[in-house]
């Protein structure tokens, strides 16, 4: 592991000013379950010079419902979210996504903020000592394209990168139509992931910190559900996961939100499927068609066609569970 500086920030202002001082060469650390691994394995060609710890900033781990909105501090632990009664009843998809993230030990350390800001899990990207200097690290190639791509994107690349986004909570937040508040702005969670700069995974600028997640309170006729398929039950990033939220009007769908993850470079919202469902009853053949539509544009790689079936299955499961 290369040496780095470590700062315990006391306030958000201090953290931001440290980020500015290092001008792109510092990273925020909270639970550390993701970034410490990156450091230990010397994943980057040039490791960041400093880590700025925000766990020392008080009051950023809240979960509270205010008016028509649930507010979650970025330092709320995944384990706490998984067992939060309010989340389990009204924001089910998020509680379930938090519960299915990583392992019990990691959930006790890992935060919701970290989970949505995490780096890629692509094995070429993560290989120690920057063995594969891929596009995401300033190189020219994506090694998965002709390599081992069993876990990679089934919806094509972005800037030639085929690595999928690995978060479990991100699709739940997107399906729940969450917003993200940062030190600079408030934006839709669905717009939080960007594709312009290959070296970045979210829209956050190098001096910007995520400070709150805001989820509109679902109506009483709304249900949400999350499903994850991974190799093991105990730990593992998703092969595919899916969150669906359905608002009903009588027995018909008023509005459906679906978000898949681990199928594309960013979380993937199948718009056609969402639109198709509006005004329909959630019957077997309806969800079957929705799943078909959702995967219509899939273009699998040499070794990941199977993910299409899994994605369809999870869409169907989550939708039917909302009935």
């Amino acid at each position: 592991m290369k040496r780095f500086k470590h700062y315990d920030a006391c306030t958000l202002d201090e953290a931001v000013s440290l980020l500015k001082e290092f001008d792109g060469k510092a990273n925020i650390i909270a639970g550390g379950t993701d970034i410490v691994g990156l450091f230990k394995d010397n994943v980057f060609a040039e490791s960041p010079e400093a880590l700025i710890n925000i766990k020392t900033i008080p009051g950023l781990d809240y979960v509270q419902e205010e008016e028509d909105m649930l507010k979650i501090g970025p330092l709320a632990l995944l384990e706490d979210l998984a067992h939060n009664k309010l989340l389990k009843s009204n924001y089910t998809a998020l509680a379930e996504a938090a519960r299915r993230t990583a392992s019990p030990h990691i959930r006790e350390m890992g935060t919701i903020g970290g989970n949505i800001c995490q780096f890629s899990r692509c094995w070429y990207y993560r290989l120690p000592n920057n063995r594969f200097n891929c596009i995401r690290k300033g190189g020219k190639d994506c090694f998965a394209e002709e390599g081992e791509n069993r876990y990679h994107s089934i919806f094509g690349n972005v800037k030639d990168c085929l690595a999928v986004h690995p978060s479990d909570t991100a699709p739940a937040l997107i399906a729940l139509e969450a917003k993200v508040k940062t030190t600079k702005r408030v934006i839709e969670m669905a717009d939080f992931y960007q594709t312009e700069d290959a070296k970045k995974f979210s829209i956050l600028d190098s001096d910007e910190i995520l400070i709150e997640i805001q989820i509109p309170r679902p109506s009483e006729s709304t249900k949400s559900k999350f499903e994850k398929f991974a190799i093991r039950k105990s730990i593992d990033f998703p092969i595919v996961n899916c969150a669906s939220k359905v608002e009903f009007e009588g027995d018909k769908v008023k509005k459906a939100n679906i978000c898949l993850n681990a199928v594309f470079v960013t979380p993937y919202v199948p718009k056609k499927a969402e639109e198709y469902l509006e005004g329909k009853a959630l019957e077997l053949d309806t969800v079957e068609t929705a799943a078909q539509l959702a995967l219509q544009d899939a273009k699998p790689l040499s070794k990941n066609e199977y993910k299409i079936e899994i994605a369809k299955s999870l869409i169907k499961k989550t939708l039917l569970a909302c009935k």
Partner: protein
Amino acid sequence: MNKKLGIMEIEPLVRDRYIQEEFSIIGKRGIARMCGKEKASGRAEYTRDVKLPGMLYCRILSSPYAHARIKSINTEKAEALPGVRAVLRYDDPELQGKELFGLETKFNAGHLATDGQAFYHGKEELAVTLEQWKQGAGRILDGVAWWEGHPVGAAVAADTPELAEEALTLIEVEWEELPLVLNPLDALKPGAPLAAPEINSKNNIIRKLKIEHGDVEKGFKEADKVIKFDARRRPYTVAEAEPISDVILWRGDNVEIWAHQQQAYDGKMLFALKMGLPLNKIKLHVPYQGSQFGGGGNPMMHHTHGVHMISGILSKRLGRPIKTFYDRRDTFYNLSQDADCHTSFKVGFNNDGTITAVKIDNICAKMGQYGIDHFEENTRIPNLALNYLEAQINVAPAYWFRCEQNHNALCLSLVFEHVAAELGMDPTIVALKNDGVEGKDMEYLSKFKKEHGFPDRDSLRECIELGKKAIDWDNKWHKPGTKVLPNGKLHGIGFTWTHEWDDTRGVACAGVLMHCDGTVDILSQKSDDGLNAMTTHCQIVAEEMGLKLEDVNFRMFEEVGFQMMTPDGSCNLAVDAYVTRNAARKAKQKLLEYATTPIKLIDIEYPPAFPNNYPDDLDVKDSIVFLKSDPSKNVPVAEVVKRATLNQGGTRAPLFTWSWHRQGRYGTEKGRHRMCRQAYFAEVEVDPGTGGVEVKKIVNVNDVGKAISPETCEGQQYGGDYMGTGRALAEEVIYDPKTGVRLNANLLDYKVWTMRDIDTTVNLLVETGMGYGAYGLNGIGECIATVVPGVIGAAIYNAIGEWVDDHPMTPDKVLKAISKAKAKRGGLR
């Protein structure tokens, strides 16, 4: 004088003919593991934990390429880093001749069949000469890398692990990348790149083997039906908990080694050989082993011999203790013995389930397994044929770990499962129809048992009956692909069987030493490999001597002049139990002699504890010696030995015995029939949407002959279930197809099954007393992990109605089988 030369006979069929019926400590449940507190509290010391004053930390450079040659190397910057004490380069003169050649590798019988140690009696042909044969792992800091991660070029010793690591990054290497080949089938194609031209400059063939029993062509002609199918087992690895390390301290003319090895004493012998040291100048310490499953066993690999050589040379040079250590990724360099196996089967059988002929064509990556052994050892099938071809490829070397019978067990499972499926027969019936030994039937085996004093029990039948009840087989077994559960998942149930791979051969010795307070030390060194040897041997000694269990202790870490069998953590009790038992019996006899023999010192005679009795009049229970005819007359053991030393023995142990035992030879031996069987049942649910397989229940039934410690046996069963299920469903070392770089050499991407990943395991023991070990024990632990992939495969077939004969059976392959079933039958109901 005309002396006739004698022959030292080894009795391969040695066994306990008179097993007592009742024990007070052996076989009892609820006995706490003696190493439990240390391990559970984190106080147990592993090699990785060893810290000596002035110790330096050594890291080895590894190749970033799967096949490359070092053109030049510059270590100046690394040498200049403050805190770096030495850099050992591959061109260092002291490294010359330290690698292992030819017969020096004889400890690894899987590699060579030329020295009489090899385990096969078939006709074997090495495609390279003995002199050419130089296993990659036997080389030390070479200038050529045969796989990505190959330790090559240089090693650095520094004040801290971090500095050693940093120094590695300062070494400048100019590499010449060479063409590579990653798959044994590709390696055998004409014009394939040569994976290791230093061994074989003509092609990539390492070994060829042909075995034939009977006449398979005749067997196929006589069969009612003949089937053909292919299977593959992809490479998997140990993923052991404790990464590899050693510590060596060269002090004057003497050396101390702290080894993380299963065969640590053999490792010491190789070290002595290569360093030109006599064995008595080397003292070996073998701390606790962090679950290496035999992976650290082979003393000729780089992680054993290579690491010892590097630590040894540097310690001699610097006069300081050296700890050479691998990191987690380095530790992933090794593979299971059946690294990558492609197998084609042809099987003939009759409509009643009798198998008439089996032909196996097997192409394996280096150091594979033949695949036919269990048919020979377990069945009455008269016609067997094997064509085996072993290919060199540019992936990490393979060697044994839990266990080298993986491929043999899988081949047996696959053949029996396919035959039962073709006939639509209950697979337990097909197993019983063909159970036998070396082509002979159960009638023959029954005669053999009687002639040799074994109990005549039908082990497989007993195991099957118990297992069927435990899994409710008669109600749950159904035709393949016919049961959909209310949750929409496909229900499957499977069965397979085999025997405990009977590696019950070997040599061991141990001493029993009683202190003057009546407590006992077992004296022997063994590696903490397998489960709970410490407690088990104490149980044996306490039982045999009539002592309380707490009066016996076994600390097996230090070199005390005696060595137990530690090549096979799981079977070694079959040999080792004889030496503790025999030494304990002798010790008890001596104790009773002390209790009845007066001591005459010049003109004074000191009476013993029982002055008017003979040893036969006495017995010992709960550490008290008593008169059999009147137990009210008794004396504590401590008092007996104290008297024997005339109450002056405070600093001396008054009673010592020892025992040596040898039995059998390595591996398969004709005529030394295997009699203990095992039956496995598994129940799965397959999600037709995702291809996910949930293992709901595994039932193991193992005939262990005699369970000295039932909970230890069950521990092997639990562990084997998890390991076997991981291998069945997920474990696979994944390489980048272009570069041969390992992509998942960490404990997240390499998927080892955990306790949250199986619903229920039911572990049952059968004790027929038909093992070759002391008390009729047979051992446990080699199989289970080895056999479980086969039974899960059978259950998946039963769920879907199509085979997934490509292990691990990952969701992509399961989904393909499901869509094949749908296409054939138009649905799954």
